């Protein structure tokens, strides 16, 4: 085990060395700090909603406040936490190292992305503090253009500006992956994390401009009364939904593909096995990205879109389920004859597979158009997408963060606490969201501030679960911060993982590698256990 070299990317301490940095690793950390803030605000909004929903009548907050809370929760979680979470934090940190590069293709653009992201974020927060927005994160017209009070345009501008950050990040990643791979790093030697982020970046670049146009159109109608969506001005409100979901459905895949990439890294590392079906896992990411562009109409089965359009979107939605299923089967098969260790990242990965499978299967209910008619816009939908967004993306983000934490900070987090937090998160998550499937089947519509009393028992269970989930989020925050000072110094490769990012010290030097590595083998070439060097038992703190 080599000691970390004295000079590393964290050595400089001045404020300007952070705010003007072009180092992809530092920018990753800047993103991490920013999204924690947005996540915390959005989580508080969720907590307030869950407390309000403990009892059927409205008591804790007014209807107006409640509506502002779920709008805030949705906007911040989607655009300011989930979308940047894995790509901008973990992607920024590890993509260049994984492919053997010294930085991304355009380091300055990378920093610009972060500034745009935060200008957007502050704009959205300003709208919140200044009085709030109650349109829901979906900004449906003509409510958002004509009827809603509040700072709709400011909020929209926030998302609009942050979107340019997304576009630049996507562009940066695509070019980095094309042009900056180390010698010998062929396309099919790329770790699957790179494939999934490549697919994600394609969506970021192609879909986000459509969101920008759509949001701009709302602003134009709201500010100057130009009839685009409001029928009294000669517009068409359903047109908005087509435009919005043309972006927002692919955005769902922006929020899960990177998670799938992380899981491929974790499953292989902690079972010490080559991934089963590399090409299938890699191409399924691209298949999801491509087919994901033509399924948006499944958000609109009851919107008055034509019967035949409904059927086409239904069949396409079933088809997009297949590549996801392929991934789950391949991850499972990877464990076969592996050497499986249940370290914290692996617990998150296994939790991901379980929850993502349930999230995916309940997606079939919603793709089945005759059943969707009943379930549409109920809590069933809420439960379904939280199984994907939280059970999938948040768990994989946490798994990835634990996995790369020693590399990022040069410190080990306390392993026992990590396992405990992973299990608390898993239990709390299920208790929060499983009852919501039943609520939805019983017919409870979403975005309800007050509800009939026959639904109460499920809301009580859900709120109880959310409290546990909250503990599951707080614990890592505490021990991660603790580990910065008191954690054991991390070796270069604490997990005995393959992958170029582990061949450089922890934390890495400014330029990642003293010498650019030359790649001679496929990813995940873990030696069979018999040949593996005896592993020192990880030291638990």
């Amino acid at each position: 085990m080599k000691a970390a070299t004295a000079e590393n990317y964290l050595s400089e301490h001045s404020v300007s060395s952070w705010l003007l940095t072009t180092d992809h690793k530092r920018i990753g950390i800047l993103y991490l700090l920013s999204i924690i803030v947005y996540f915390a605000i959005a989580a508080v909004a969720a907590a307030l909603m869950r407390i309000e929903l403990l009892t059927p009548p409205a008591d804790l907050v007014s209807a107006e406040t409640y509506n502002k809370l779920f709008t805030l929760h949705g906007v911040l979680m989607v655009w300011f936490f989930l979308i940047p979470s894995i790509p901008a934090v973990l992607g920024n940190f590890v993509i260049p190292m994984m492919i053997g590069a010294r930085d991304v293709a355009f380091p300055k653009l990378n920093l610009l992305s972060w500034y745009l992201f935060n200008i957007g974020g502050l704009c959205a927060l300003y709208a919140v503090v200044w009085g709030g927005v109650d349109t829901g994160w979906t900004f449906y017209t003509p409510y958002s253009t004509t009827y809603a009070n509040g700072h709709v345009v400011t909020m929209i501008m926030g998302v609009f500006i942050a979107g340019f950050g997304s576009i630049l990040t996507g562009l940066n990643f695509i070019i980095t992956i094309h042009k900056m791979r180390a010698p010998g790093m062929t396309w099919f030697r790329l770790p699957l994390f790179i494939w999934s982020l490549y697919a994600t970046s394609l969506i970021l670049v192609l879909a986000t401009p459509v969101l920008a146009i759509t949001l701009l159109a709302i602003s134009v109608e709201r500010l100057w009364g130009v009839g685009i969506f409001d029928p009294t001005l000669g517009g068409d409100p359903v047109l908005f939904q087509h435009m919005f979901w043309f972006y927002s459905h692919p955005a769902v895949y922006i929020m899960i593909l990177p998670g799938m990439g992380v899981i491929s890294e974790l499953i292989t590392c902690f079972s010490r096995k080559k991934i089963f079906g590399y090409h299938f896992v890699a191409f399924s990411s691209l298949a999801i990205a491509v087919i994901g562009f033509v399924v948006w109409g499944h958000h609109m089965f009851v919107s008055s879109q034509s019967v035949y359009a409904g059927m086409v979107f239904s069949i396409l939605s079933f088809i997009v389920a297949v590549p996801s299923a392929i991934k789950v089967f391949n991850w499972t098969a990877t464990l076969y004859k592996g050497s499986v260790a249940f370290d914290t990242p692996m617990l998150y990965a296994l939790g991901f597979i379980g929850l993502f499978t349930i999230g995916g299967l309940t997606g079939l209910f919603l793709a089945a158009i005759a059943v969707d008619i009943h379930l549409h816009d109920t809590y069933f939908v809420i439960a379904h997408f939280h199984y994907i967004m939280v059970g999938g993306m948040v768990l994989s983000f946490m798994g990835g963060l634990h996995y790369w934490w020693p590399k990022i900070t040069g410190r080990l987090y306390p392993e026992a606490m990590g396992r405990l937090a992973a299990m608390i998160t898993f239990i709390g998550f299920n208790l929060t969201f499983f009852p919501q499937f039943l609520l939805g089947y019983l017919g409870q519509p979403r975005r309800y501030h007050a509800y009939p009393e026959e639904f109460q028992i499920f809301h009580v269970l859900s709120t109880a679960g959310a409290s546990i989930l909250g503990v599951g989020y707080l614990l890592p925050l505490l021990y991660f911060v603790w580990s910065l000072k008191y954690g054991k110094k991390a070796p270069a490769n604490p997990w005995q993982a393959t992958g170029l990012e582990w061949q450089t010290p922890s934390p890495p030097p400014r330029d990642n590698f003293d010498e650019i590595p030359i790649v001679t083998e496929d990813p995940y070439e873990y030696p069979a256990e018999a040949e593996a060097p005896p592993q020192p038992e990880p030291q638990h703190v």
Partner: protein
Amino acid sequence: MNFHLFPEQASSIASESDWMFWALTGLSALICVLVFLPLCWFALKYRRGRKVDRKMEDLPTWKIELTWTLIPFVLCMGIFAWSAEVFFRMETPPPDALEVNVVGKQWMWKLQHAEGAREINELHVPTGRPVKLMMTSQDVIHDFYVPAFRMKQDVVPGRYTTQWFVPTKPGRYRIFCAQYCGTTHSAMGGWAYVMEPHDYERWLAQGSPEPMAVQGETLFRRLGCTGCHSPGSKIHAPPLEGLYGRLVPLETKEFVTANDQYIRDSILLPASQITAGYQNLMPSFKGHISEEEIMQLIAYIKSIANKTPEGYSR
């Protein structure tokens, strides 16, 4: 605290919808078992430090991959076909359905039966007969949802949307607004009363209201429509007798079916679809007429669909 695990079934489609829901639940449970069992079994059997045979045999990777690609694909197509067939029936109302007009506004439902009875936030329907709701909104998008019927449809300003069902079980069921529509969205609901047919007839006759078509005819005169659209009028305007349901040739050489939407658009945006052979003379009634009144006019024009126009100027 009262609660139940199964929503009530009060329409003919409810049991079909539930059948599919539970079939999907069963299938999902089976798939979960098929994924989670091997997952747990592999994870435990091959956990690190345990002495087991880890020597990999040569697996026919391509065959395995194809198997678990094709089986889900075929399953998905099967579910699609099943659900599409049911959906198609859900979207095709029979021609003899009872008609109820629904107007949504922030935050209430205003309904009127073809026979004339009006109600607010309540819907009375008989068992055993198909009921078709003809719906629109006068402000934002709403959604008329009765969970016990397993039916829901957005109610969109500027358009007519429909839903239909055959109520089966007498009782009182909740109506919800399922599309977020502003501050008191969660209070925009009410009750659907499913009644035995004779009870329904009695309810309908209360206060002996005028049928919508008759109210529409009165309105038609009051608004001065007869000045042009009547036999003997000096002004060259298209006759409305026999119009409903017919194909109408337009100046643009297109054809449109004279359905509810067409009539609505012709009243509010007359210049948008000029009938071939006529001039753009009609004033817009936008702002002078409510959604309910438009529905009454449509009911009137529908009631004269079987008449033939006579005595119009050529």
